[in-house]
């Protein structure tokens, strides 16, 4: 199959690449751009580990072809804080022990970033529903919910 030239803006950086149409956006980000913070857990759109922001909205990067990202704006976990300077949401996850193996965590973060922008003071029920599309096998979610509450207090409004 022919490769298609695409131009994608990822985390504020412009990338020009040529991709086969069938290349999944998750694979493109991870293996073509080496942005390996986005994880792949099921490749059928249920686990949520590959959640990224596509033009600001959280979507499953395993259910979009890289070629479809042409001309779009993508944000991945790498756009949040660095190891030395964590984003308040990341800090809250750290403080509340909201991650164990950490594999699902980038997906949770990318789901929650826009959620907290829209719901600066979420209730526990709203938080549960917001993270319902992300599976965590380790934590039982309890500490994630506490972390989101804490983040909502920390994050600038």
């Amino acid at each position: 199959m022919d490769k298609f030239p695409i131009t994608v803006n990822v985390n504020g950086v412009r990338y020009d690449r040529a991709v086969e149409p069938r290349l999944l956006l998750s694979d493109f980000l991870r293996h073509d751009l080496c942005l390996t913070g986005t994880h792949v857990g099921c490749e059928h759109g249920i686990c949520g580990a590959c959640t990224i922001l596509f033009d600001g909205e959280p979507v499953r990067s395993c259910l979009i072809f890289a070629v479809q990202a042409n001309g779009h704006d993508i944000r991945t976990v790498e756009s949040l804080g660095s190891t030395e300077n964590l984003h308040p949401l990341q800090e809250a996850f750290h403080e509340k022990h909201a991650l164990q193996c950490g594999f699902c965590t980038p997906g949770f973060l990318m789901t929650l970033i826009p959620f907290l922008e829209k719901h600066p003071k979420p209730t526990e029920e709203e938080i549960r529903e917001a993270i319902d599309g992300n599976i965590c096998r380790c934590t039982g979610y309890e500490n994630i919910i506490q972390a989101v509450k804490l983040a909502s207090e920390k994050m600038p409004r």
Partner: protein
Amino acid sequence: MAGKYFGQPILRNEDAQLLSGKARFIDDIDLPGMLHAAFLRSDFAHARIKKIDYSAALKRSGVVAVYTAEDFGDFWRPGPLQVPPPTAIKGSVFNARTLVPIAKDKVRFSGEPLAVIIAESRYIAEDAFDDIIVEIEPLDAVNDLEKALEPGAPLVHEDLDSNLAADVVQERGNYEEARAKADVVISRKILVNRNAGAALENRGFVVEWEERSRQMTVWATTQAPIPLRNTIAARMGLFENQVRVITPFIGGGFGPKIMTSQADDVLLPWIAMKLKRPIKWIEDRRENFLATTSERDQVHYAEIALTKEGTILGVKDVFYHNTGAYDPYGMTVPLNTQTHTVSNYRVPNFYTQIKMVFTNQMVVTPVRGAGRPQGVFVMERLMDAAARELNMDPAEIRMKNLLIPDEFPLRTGIIGQDFVEGVLDSGNYKKNLEKTMEIVGYEKFRKEIQPKLRAEGKHVGIGIVTFTEGTAVGPYEGARVTIGANGKVNVATGISTQGQGHFTSFAQIVAEQVGIDVKDINVVTGDTAHFHWGAGTFASRGAAVAGSAIHNAAVKVREKIFSLASKIFEEPEENLEVGDGKVWVKSNPSQSMLLGDLALRANPTRGTIEPGVEPGLEATAYYGPPYGATGAGAVAMIVNLDPETMQVKVEHFVIVHDCGTAINPMILEGQVYGGISMGIGNAFYEKMVYDDNGQLLSASFMDYLMPQATDMPAKMELGHLVTTTPLNTLGIKGVGEAGAIPTPAAFVQAVEDALHGQVEIMESNLNPSRIFEYLQKKQ
């Protein structure tokens, strides 16, 4: 036991890397010239292979090589018996039929590899599936555990005369005599369903053979890096030090990642050597469901004999255990079932028999809980049936039969997975139950709340169960603790980490001894170049066994600090103190030295080291327990059931847990929460369903339902008791599997209670439709 570091809820060292997307997982590894592997897997569960023609695949652009069993020649052979059966059990039968790396002549489960394709990308490797022509003759499959043992059943292994994999009887006292004396005998058939580990990261394997240095480097998602290295070296005819196994960050383990000698770790090193290029294989979700390992499937015929006052006289349990198509992991899982069936109650007479059965299904190895949830489920169901029969409260009958601290250490007479007779070391089981009842408000719920809600037409029920968790088994682990010239500490141990927080909890153990901050302690797990003795992460043993070894090593380093500093300061050791990265003289704190400087002095470039002194602020130590430490706890659960739709919501969940000393209470709680979510999943959502022909019908997250945030209890409360174990200096017992063990038993009890005891449910995984069926049958 708590100190400045040890026992404190210290935040995790590893978090920043994981949170910022900078942690390296297996699929993040990218090597120059790397090839990608994909396995063509059998659609059939049981079939004879006539011919596999892959000539067309080789013509596909981007395909580098294809191999079937024939192509591996003598290298193809069944894998090792990863866990042999205990020899101590007299009269037991065990037929070892270990996993073959790739099917030869015959396929024994759906998902078994038929061919391995090596290509320039995973996409191309999968394209080649369509090019391979497999001529196969389907055979009747064996799935039902009881029918599998009937004469004339199709044979999974035709060189055996039945599908019996093992038959093990263990007994203490004399059950038949006890039964004869009993006022009440209750018999039930009890089913436990199959569940997956379903770590969010699938398995993966990357191998590189560097021909010039004759070094093989393997990155793997294994829970047992050292055994993996040893088997690879042995198979490849290499020395152990020619093979380095590295576990990068691992996205959850939960048991199935303990298994070695599967297609990837057997075949890919051989192929990498042949092709002289690195190879990567990343398991996909469907493969994980079909062909990794899973657990739980058992059928029990259980019986309990009691006095009319509710005192247990004896228990008999004969059960069928599904081991799948092969039994490379020995009898670990059903032995755990045997040791956990009655462990927390006073059962003077106990007869237990395993009938382990080969079926045309994926191989069974431990999944979080590992046979324990089955044993606990069976016993707790029997207790509930007995309570009903004797018109006793479920809590009351339990309280009456729980063991008390005076009885410990108690020899159980039952040999466990660790080859030794189970001994209950310590614990306070009644107190666990009392505290649970107190937190959940058991009496009030029974006497006031439930009657009131029932009057309002609500179907609310409570379940209350107790459990033990055999943990911290041998054989041993080891560790090396080194203080560097930079004043920081390096800790290396042989187990690997899948999210348990070892990078922090192990650092806490060391920090307490050497007085260096947790943040300045680098823990390396799962790299055989750093530490190459040990067994692995399983059976809730990491913290207790590796932790104890680390503690022992850290104590030795502390002794070395004092000994050397004492010479330098010319002060007796008892006048010295360590902390904040330095050692000083108590009476004169200005007389001090940074530990980094001391480390340099411990490794002098001139002069001499006295006989008997080892250089460096470094020590290696090992720890092996005589037998495992037993954690215990109790769970109460209040559920609300919609009597029209049969939807069940867990409203309140209480667990009181005793795992001895906590290294880091925050991490401990996280482990318990996680276990609970798996327990709730096992009880009401997750179920692996095979059809009569051995086809797995639930090989995706569409059908294998993972618990979500909204499925979790609205209110969760954790209580802790601390009964330290005498088995290790730190008093630690394991905790990793705690939440998963009792939860299905408590859930089923609560559902029965919510239905006013109209139905009796003797299976571990429910769904609303199943509850509806029970009620329909009743009517």
